[in-house]
């Protein structure tokens, strides 16, 4: 039996008829074709699937799509709507915070959520905000430096 799912994704209203056993991650990647949100583990450990749900970072792989019904979803594609790159993304690019880039969308969204809550975080607060986002390429250092630089410049 299919259920009606209504979401606002990157400020656009979308509607689907879906089976309830679909996760928000599946709907984002398969039904909406937004593949910026990645699957790294499927069990909420790596954070590659991080999206903002009503502004808060969550693991889309563990969120039933129907439980997001009526909510606002922001994916990485939503940060650069209309083609303008978000300054936080610019900071990641400039400061070498991206290597393979698989963790990057989730990492940027977690960072954005932190900065929306707390515009001038200290380094330890930045690191704590990112513990749900694993990175294997960078050792996190340039990611932290990119965010710190962004904070200083804005």
């Amino acid at each position, binding site marked *: *039996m299919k*259920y009606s799912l209504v979401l606002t994704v990157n400020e656009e209203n979308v509607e689907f008829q879906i*089976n*309830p*056993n*679909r*996760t928000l991650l*599946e709907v984002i990647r398969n039904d909406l074709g937004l593949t910026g949100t990645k*699957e790294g583990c*499927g*069990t*909420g*450990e790596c*954070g590659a699937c*991080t999206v903002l*749900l009503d502004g*808060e*970072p*969550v*693991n889309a792989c*563990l*969120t*039933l799509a*129907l*439980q997001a*019904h009526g909510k606002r979803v922001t994916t990485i594609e939503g940060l650069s709507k209309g083609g303008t790159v978000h300054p936080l993304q610019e900071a990641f690019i400039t400061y070498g915070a991206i290597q393979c880039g698989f963790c990057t969308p989730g990492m940027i969204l*977690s960072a954005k*959520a*932190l900065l929306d809550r707390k515009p001038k975080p200290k380094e330890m607060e930045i690191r704590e*905000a990112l*513990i*749900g*986002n694993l990175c294997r390429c960078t050792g996190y250092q340039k990611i932290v430096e990119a965010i710190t630089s962004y904070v200083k410049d804005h």
Partner: protein
Amino acid sequence: MMHLNKFEYLSPSSLPEVFELLERYGTRAKLVAGGTDLIVQMKEKRIAPEVMINLLEVPELQRIERCDAGIRIGATVKLSALESSSTFQREWKILASAAHGVGSPQVRNRGTIGGNLCNASPAADMAPSLLVMEAAVTLAGRKGEREIPLESFFTGPGLTVLRSDEILKEITIPTTPQHSFGAYLKLGRRKSMDLALVSVAVLLTLNRNKETCERTRIALGSVAPTPVRASETEKMLEGKRPDEKLIQEAAQCAEKECRPISDIRSTATYRKEMIKVHVRRAILQALAAGR
């Protein structure tokens, strides 16, 4: 990708609706709140419920309200709310600390206090601090409500006294007695997101002169089939002056009281040793907070 089994999904908007569904579906149904434990278990094929009842649209379960006894927290209050609440940081500090230590921000933005307790892991992050605060849980069903001490809620790894027609409705925490100081310590395999190898919560209520422990509450996680109070250790300290020697003895007593197992994360031997170390450290930290 690991897929969830097919299930029927229901999203009641009131408690009476929830109770009706529980009566109808019984053990065929699972209640889902944040899903951060449940969905993982389903993906790992440990459970495959036919029916999922979503609790997140039930307003009665989302409230935080002061009451005569202290404060009531609805079962689906998110861990992120507890972590960031200035009320809890001020008046029930170790609860806010415990919430802060759960998983990652992503997990805390979905995970709920009720879900953490009902999942009933021996390592349940919220249990030790709630135990030392002598919290009570209200279990509710169509037949009515019953309030029991949290201590009596857990019966084994993943097991609670909840009947198939009941839900955990709210958690009631008494006002913290005056001159009380607490500490919560959690040991993991790394500092970033981890499950507890051992965890310790301590709440010491000192006398007026802050010299003796009028009341001691110590709870241990991950070292028994359920989160437990270290009652023998508590007795050792009550009414006494907590000097270095007594604290050491108390730590050794806690080591003897716990019954950890060896599993993929750690050994029983290491866990026992760590209980000793962390009970001592938690007591010292609580006392330091009192100075």
